């Protein structure tokens, strides 16, 4: 179906595929609940959240080629801003449509703040500084409960307001149009809307002037500057745009969970989001989406390993949590060996990892420039 969407044979076929996809996405939470139970609808919600995060980080890492290992800091900032402005912690209860943009903007500003001192850094050095930035934010959140209690320290902030739309609270199970919708269902549709918007923006950015400038900087910064590209501003913009989506996802996360603490924003999260991009296909939007979906859904599926063991062996030999991490690591190692370009790489990236035989031959022949 995806193939049809990309290369529709006729107009009506394209429309049919699109309608089918829309219906599927609309029914997905109900199908999931019926087949696997309500907890899986929550997994779906998280999968969408991670799609937003991965697409945001993809702007920085995939498009502009800036390795950012502290991406989770922006996620944390968005989440904390939401908690401060919509919870009993400060007694503020602003509506979500006001808080979400503020959180995204705050993250964007911090994106520039992080970007500015790291402009001259590349590769490993940039990774180290961004990693430090991520930890700084987390440690601040962990310790800013004294002398003035801003973040409530390691206990985190509780009772965060759920999203309200037209008098409908997303935090409770309610009847809408004769359907029983749980909180997870409501958030599914909200997240789906934001995810679709993010995908749309990601595509538009990729094909824009700025998108081309990012690619040029990724390829060769000196040459990019020589083309008249303001490398400083364009890099800062990449950090800001990426951070914006991180902040947005953070706000959504806070509203959805109703509780946040510094623990949710550790280094592992940054690495996980980066893994989604690498696994799916860096810089390629369908790949990044697939990576995010796989890495949220698969670990949940692997939870059943305990039950299977009990069923087959009569006892739990290996703790599912241990096994999950083991399998996760093994999957990544196998990927790096057999498909380093990712599951759905862009044509460009695929070529880079697998020079076709013809090209290689041509390359070798032209080394000597015999035909002139």
């Amino acid at each position, binding site marked *: 179906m995806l193939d049809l969407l990309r290369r529709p044979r006729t107009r009506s076929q394209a429309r049919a595929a699109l309608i089918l996809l829309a219906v599927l996405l609309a029914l997905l939470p109900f199908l999931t609940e019926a087949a696997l139970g309500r907890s899986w609808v929550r997994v779906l919600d998280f999968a969408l959240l991670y799609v937003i995060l991965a697409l945001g980080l993809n702007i920085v890492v995939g498009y502009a080629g800036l390795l950012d290992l502290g991406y989770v800091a922006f996620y944390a900032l968005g989440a904390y801003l939401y908690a401060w402005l919509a919870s009993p912690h400060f007694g503020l209860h602003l509506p979500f449509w006001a808080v979400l943009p503020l959180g995204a903007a705050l993250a964007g500003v911090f994106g520039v703040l992080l970007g500015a001192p790291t402009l001259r850094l590349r590769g490993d050095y940039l990774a180290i500084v961004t990693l430090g930035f991520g930890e700084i934010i987390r440690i601040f959140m962990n310790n800013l409960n004294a002398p003035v209690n801003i973040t409530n320290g390691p206990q985190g902030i509780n009772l965060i307001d759920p999203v309200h739309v037209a008098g409908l609270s997303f935090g409770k199970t309610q009847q809408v149009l004769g359907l029983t919708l749980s909180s997870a269902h409501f958030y599914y549709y909200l997240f789906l809307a934001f995810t679709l918007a993010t995908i749309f923006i990601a595509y538009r950015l990729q094909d824009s002037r700025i998108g*081309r400038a990012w690619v040029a900087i990724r390829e*060769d910064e000196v040459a990019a500057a020589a083309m*008249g590209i303001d490398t400083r501003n364009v890099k800062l913009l990449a950090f800001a745009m990426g951070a914006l989506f991180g902040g947005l996802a953070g706000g959504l996360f806070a509203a959805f969970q109703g509780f946040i603490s510094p623990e949710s924003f550790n280094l592992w999260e940054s690495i996980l989001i980066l893994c989604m991009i690498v696994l799916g296909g860096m810089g390629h939007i369908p790949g990044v989406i697939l990576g995010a979906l796989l890495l949220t859904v698969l670990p949940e599926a692997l939870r059943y390993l305990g039950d299977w063991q009990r069923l087959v062996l009569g006892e739990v030999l290996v703790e599912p949590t241990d096994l999950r991490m083991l399998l996760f690591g093994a999957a990544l190692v196998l990927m790096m060996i057999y498909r380093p370009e990712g599951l759905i790489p862009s044509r460009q990236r695929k070529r880079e990892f697998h*020079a076709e035989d013809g090209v290689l031959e041509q390359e070798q022949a032209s080394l000597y*420039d015999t035909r002139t």
Partner: protein
Amino acid sequence: MALLQVRGLKVAYGGIRAVRGIDLDVDDGELVCLIGANGAGKSSTLRGITGLVHASGEIRLAGKRLGGLPTHAIAREGVALVPEGRGIFARLQVWENLAMGAYARRDKGVDEDLARVYELFPRLAERRQQIAGTLSGGEQQMLAIGRALMSRPRLLLLDEPSMGLAPLMVRKIYDTIQAIARQGVTILLVEQNAHLALQVSARAYVMESGGITLAGTSGELASDPAIQAAYLGS
């Protein structure tokens, strides 16, 4: 007045003074070359002019001061650099590289210029869909020059276009450089291969350990016994 006017240009990397206060002029429509041995400061001069390294002294393009401007602003003033080692966007296709050359332009003549570049380099036209990194060295040099031309520069700076190329390919590249100069593009050519550079240029400067030691028309310099001994190997 000269299109490019350089007065007292100095470039230093920490304590090492690579360029020690040189004067240089390139007139409108002229092909001027800057020759000298490895490490004489030729590339540093170009890097200083384009703002890639910090330089002191005065650099003017058609009277406008360029000193202190960032590289991208200097590029937008119409100074196109073909850097040493070409600096092509290796993972992009040939036409994408060329399109990137016109990044700062907002006028309508881009397609026209693209056609002109393809005319100048038929090899690139044949390979417009090819990934630039898989081109041969000579083709990459063509691409780098073509990309610089796409910005419709007032001044084209070429840094060692013959480097690492087979003799036949060097010949081809130099023919094209001459063709470009004949079309009226002002060129400052930096080259270690003095023999070639003096053949195609009108005037030349000779650089040695950070300073300009000789200047004159290329014909004069080519017959200068000191130059012949030092650079032309005869």
